[in-house]
């Protein structure tokens, strides 16, 4: 059985879908933010692999086809953006101002906290791109000399956290404008947060998609300056 699973091309893909479906079911049943389908599926799959002693490579062998779809899917983020283009034009000052201050807040808070925890320069740089989309974040981390696998881990952690907390944070800080909600979610928690923004509404989803691209590009430039601060 283990041999079959280790050699199967379909196992990784299949268990990813099963895990996500379980997550969707739990979310429907308990209606709690903690039952985030992504989080549930990851806990389910890691537990499954550990219990049946299947290594990550065997899983990834099938699951990679799912990751391959990420690039065309990111390209498709242009569709909701196109549908909200007038809204973007009318609010471009607010959107750009918001994203810019968000990126600076992100880098500055990481700088201060890294100093507080006395992290090494390598660890600090690893964390710098954690609010932006994985594809750009990997590039930034590599370029500046961070630990890339760790960068990916923190990017995903940030995304899941943003996804789970988005609605609560918007409520606490009274962020009510759909445009502001979308920009906030996309700037802080990239594509994984954007999945939540799309659930909240079309405008939120579109603005969040835009924020991923713009925040990513600003971070590329700003992170290379911030890298010298520790």
């Amino acid at each position, binding site marked *: 059985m283990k041999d079959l699973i280790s050699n199967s091309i379909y196992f990784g893909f299949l268990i*990813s879908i099963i895990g*996500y479906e379980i997550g969707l079911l739990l979310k429907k049943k308990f209606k709690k933010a903690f039952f985030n*389908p992504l989080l549930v*599926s*990851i806990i389910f*799959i*890691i537990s499954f692999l550990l219990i049946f002693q299947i290594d*990550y490579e065997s899983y*990834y062998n099938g*699951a990679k086809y*799912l990751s391959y779809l*990420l*690039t*065309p*899917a*990111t*390209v*498709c*983020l*242009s*569709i*909701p*953006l*196109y549908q909200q283009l007038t809204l973007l034009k009318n609010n471009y000052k*607010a*959107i750009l101002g918001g994203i810019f201050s*968000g990126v600076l*807040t992100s880098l500055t*808070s990481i700088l201060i*906290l*890294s100093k507080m*925890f006395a*992290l090494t320069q390598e660890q600090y740089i690893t964390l710098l791109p954690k*609010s932006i*989309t994985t*594809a*750009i974040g990997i*590039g930034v981390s590599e370029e500046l000399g961070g630990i890339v*696998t760790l960068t990916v*881990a923190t990017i*995903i*952690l*940030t*995304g899941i*956290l*943003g996804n789970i*907390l*988005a609605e609560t*944070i918007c409520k606490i*800080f009274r962020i009510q*404008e759909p*445009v*502001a909600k979308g920009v*906030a979610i996309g700037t*802080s928690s990239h594509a*994984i947060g954007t999945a939540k923004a*799309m659930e909240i509404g079309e405008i939120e989803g579109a603005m969040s998609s835009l924020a991923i691209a713009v925040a*990513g*590009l600003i971070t*590329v430039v700003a992170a290379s300056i911030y890298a010298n601060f520790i």
Partner: protein
Amino acid sequence: MRLIKQFGIILAVTFIGELLHYIIPLPIPASIYGLVLMLIALKSRLIPLHKVKDAGSFLLEIMPMMFIPATVGLMVSWNSLRSILFPVLIITFITTIVVMAVTGCITQLIIRLEKRNSK
């Protein structure tokens, strides 16, 4: 056939994005070039919305699932993460909340100021 044709168009734009990423020496990923190109193509009606909408919506709908494989990879990078797990968790938690709150509040503030000025 309709869906696969739409998927084909999306892949074509993605491929041009990859090409640009290959030619231009900047740390900008193929997907962002593709996103901008697709937006320009939609705006200029080079690609009408209905030619990509169904396949595109499907991809967007299943997008969260696409992060599963990389995240399960945490089980491999666990050893390098474990030594700084505590600071990483605290930093991630604080910055995610602070960044979301600051970005949202500032965006909202500017929107409301502009609305008031235009009245």
